[in-house]
């Protein structure tokens, strides 16, 4: 039940991404191209997703616990730090170069297109690189002077 419901939720998300056009880099890149072939569709995707999620969360988070779990896992940090801002700036750079974001690429994987597989493989490599980089930075910070 836990796994099956998660599978169906992923399917609903993926269908939303496909219907919205977020699995289509041509459409995503045109949204970011106000000075050129602008396609404002993705602004409406955000408006609609935020409306549904904002209202739904308000209702759901009033309960004590999720239906299939013991507690809500909510991020608690309120720190606006350099990793948050620099990481986001880099994410925007990569998104503008390739036209895929993680939530757009994972559903697009199901088309079996080699370019999507290449993107996801490179994204995973980037995640590992970040992990190594972070470990190195921490090691350097705590190394004896």
């Amino acid at each position, binding site marked *: 039940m836990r796994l099956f419901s998660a599978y169906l939720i992923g399917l*609903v998300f993926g269908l939303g991404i496909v219907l919205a056009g977020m699995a289509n880099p041509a459409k995503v890149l045109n949204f970011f191209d106000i000075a050129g072939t602008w396609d404002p569709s993705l602004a409406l995707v955000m408006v609609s*997703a935020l409306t549904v999620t904002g209202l739904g969360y308000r209702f759901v988070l009033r309960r004590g616990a999720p239906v299939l779990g013991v507690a809500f896992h909510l991020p608690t940090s309120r720190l606006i730090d350099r990793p948050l801002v620099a990481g986001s700036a880099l994410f925007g750079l990569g998104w*503008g170069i390739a*036209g895929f974001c993680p939530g757009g690429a994972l559903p697009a994987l199901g088309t079996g*297109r080699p370019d999507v597989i290449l993107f996801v493989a490179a994204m995973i490599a980037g995640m590992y690189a970040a992990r190594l980089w972070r470990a190195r930075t921490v090691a350097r910070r705590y190394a004896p002077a």
Partner: protein
Amino acid sequence: MTPPILTEFTPWQALGGGALIGLAAVLLMALHGRILGATGIAAGILPGGGTDKGWRIAIVAGMATAPLAWLFATGAMPVVAVPVPLAMIALGGLIVGFGVSYSSGCTSGHGVCGIARLSPRSIVATLTFMASAFATVFVIRHLIGA
């Protein structure tokens, strides 16, 4: 570099797609108590990404089934048009993976779930990556003229 591919303004599909994304986010919170963020879910599946992998793998499997379900419902695969060369796909993928790891989230986690909770971190993250993506596309398409 290949020229931009024109796409039409599709307001109803955009609103409908966004509503489905929101519905999935609300259901995941209501049933599993989890944020629906593609970054966290993908990172949690990789080796070294924690022990609670089952629901994350199930969600990614569901996501990747969407094109087939779409094919079944509409008779055609969803449109995925890539207007950039493979080198840019690979470079963009690397930078996206590195960036979202550092910012702990992307469009779904910060942009939808985080802003819906009025998280100050998510608002800053979303404004930053949106501005960065607009600037990147402007530079690539209009300044470099690629």
